[in-house]
């Protein structure tokens, strides 16, 4: 299986649909994402664009009505004997996945800390469970390790907290516990699915810092899902913008933030709250994402796109190359397309943000 030396996880042409009473929902339509060792890749997009389904496919958590039509999720890891191995996570059985991958190599942090801990089990047990499950040591070891993890994620009084039940902890604390659980067996990859969305703004920032901090300390590779572009700027190396089950723009943080090429990305950036301007002209993208019960014809974004071309209604744009790391799926990048620039307001705003950022370099 082909994969770059430094690439640790690679989604290749992933295509997933769901059987529902109303018909087949084609939720993921050929997704490619690459995660390199030690880096953070963000996936952004509106609700329903397919961010969660994409990563759930990698950890064997797809709902029962899902069908993987095409694609691979390649994962490179070191065996215990030190040899490297590349596997296709989609080709593994549930059992194989649970015993060799989940928790021990790829761990996950979920969106809502209020519901993601078992209410009938002490948090100590919930942290120790994975350690014992993957046979990292005996009970005493697991206990010591759990304490160490609680301290690592910034929970004071760890010994006492071990005996607490989830309902005795605040939302922010619970998310710290979830992160401790994820880190319990030293995974290579941490997948965070909107880990701060359900939290208060002040606590969001602290959880974000915590994730960055443990990533640096433990050398993790991170996939970070969010619909908050402000968060992306803080954590990510690469950004994948997802729309209607496809990646429509990908690039480094600077490329996507300061030279976005896709009108959808423009829309997302324009919708970002900005402390310095109260410009009403910068508003959210009109309309709503297409219903994937019906296969979109042409560009799925065309109906909401103020810059749509004739061809958008007939053919889906391929990913056009902007630079070695920057690609965008819009016909505006076709050599024959009319020259269209991003809206003036956005341009000035991005330039200001860029200058602002350079000051702090």
């Amino acid at each position, binding site marked *: 299986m082909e994969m770059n030396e430094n690439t640790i996880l690679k989604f290749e042409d992933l295509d997933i649909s769901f059987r529902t009473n109303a018909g087949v929902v084609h939720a993921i339509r050929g997704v490619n994402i690459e995660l390199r060792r030690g880096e953070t890749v963000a996936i952004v997009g509106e609700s329903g664009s397919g961010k969660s389904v994409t990563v759930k496919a990698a950890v064997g958590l797809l709902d029962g009505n899902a069908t993987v039509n095409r694609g691979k999720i390649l994962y490179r890891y070191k065996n215990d004997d030190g040899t490297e191995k590349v596997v296709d996570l989609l080709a593994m059985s549930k059992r194989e996945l649970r015993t060799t991958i989940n928790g021990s190599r790829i761990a996950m942090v979920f969106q809502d800390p209020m519901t*993601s801990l*078992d209410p*009938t089990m002490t948090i100590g047990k919930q942290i120790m469970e994975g350690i014992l499950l993957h046979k990292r040591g005996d009970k005493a070891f697991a206990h010591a390790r759990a304490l160490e993890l609680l301290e690592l994620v910034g929970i004071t009084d760890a010994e006492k907290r071990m005996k607490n039940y989830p*309902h*005795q902890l*605040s939302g922010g604390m619970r998310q710290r516990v979830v992160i401790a659980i994820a880190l319990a067996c030293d995974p290579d990859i941490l997948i965070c699915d909107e880990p701060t969305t359900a939290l208060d703004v002040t606590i969001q920032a*602290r959880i974000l810092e915590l994730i960055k901090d443990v990533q640096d300390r433990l050398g993790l590779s991170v996939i970070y899902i969010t619909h908050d572009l402000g968060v992306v700027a803080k954590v990510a190396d690469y950004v994948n913008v997802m729309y209607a089950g496809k990646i429509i723009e990908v690039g480094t943080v600077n490329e996507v933030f300061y030279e976005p090429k896709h009108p959808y990305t423009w829309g997302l950036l324009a919708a970002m709250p900005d402390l310095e301007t109260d410009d009403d002209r910068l508003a959210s993208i009109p309309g709503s994402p297409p219903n994937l019960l019906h296969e979109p014809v042409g560009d799925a974004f065309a109906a909401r796109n103020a810059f749509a071309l004739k061809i958008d209604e007939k053919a889906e744009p391929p990913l056009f190359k902007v630079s070695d790391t920057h690609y965008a799926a819009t016909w505006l990048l076709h050599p024959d397309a009319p020259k269209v620039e991003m809206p003036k307001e956005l341009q000035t705003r991005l330039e200001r943000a860029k200058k602002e950022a350079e000051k702090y370099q």
Partner: protein
Amino acid sequence: MKKYILKRVAMSLATLLLITFVLFVLVRIMPGNPFPSERMSAEQIANKRAELGLDDPVLVQFSRYMANLAHGDFGKGTSLYYGAPIKTVLGQCISNSFRIGGLAIFIGTAVGLILGITAALNKGTFLDAFCTVFSILGVCVPGYVFLIFLQYFFSYKIPFFPYFFDSSRFLFSSVMPALSLSLFTMSTVARFTRNEMVEVMDSDYVHLAESKGMYGNMLVTRHILRNALIPIVTVLAPLIVDLLTGALVVEKIYGINGIGKLMVDSIAGEGVDYNYVLALGILYSALYIGIMLIVDILYGLLDPRIRVASSEGGDA
């Protein structure tokens, strides 16, 4: 937890006392006479009323009744069983009803849980559909219809089980009525277990456990069952009371001398037997309150959110 239990016990006792009083008054203002009055002269009735102390003020009667009750004495029947002490008659009926009811509860809960768990773990398959159909049938078909059906096949066509209840062959002759009685509980428990399990299986915390590497039986026993079973305790409680207090029709059809049959007799006889109605009313209430108390305590044991009442979390 200790304080919580004590409080609940005290509350239960107070409730029971109140219910007893209300029952006592209600029975007395109910239309009808406590003895076969049609065959008695006005003088005989007056004598009988005086003998039973029915002409005293209600509060006086009540305190007398409670004083006797404190010694476990329910008094005598006013029209049933020629005035035999209620304690003796009731004892026999309770023994029959409780044993058959207990068997029904056991069968119903055990089979219901197995069916529900199997259906949930095989969601969307034939087994799941079978469980659903069975549950609907079991809830719709009354137990006594099933009993008649059993009698027809297993007593009449194939004479294996006895036609009627026979206390000398207790266990053997309890099989058919217990099975019939368990049907409703079985279906209810099966349906409820299945739905609860399916919901828990799709919860975030089960997904988190799976993302830790949990799977199979371990996942079911450690994370799914316990969470799914907590609400089942609540549905089970009233079903248990229903079964323990006997089923009127099933007891009647199968000739079981149980509480259900006694209840019918005490109201539908020649006179409404005050003391039996009262004694049975108190028994029903006591059972209900007692079981609810047990459920509450069990809930506390199963669910830490109730046991560990005060939350003391800090901030992130």
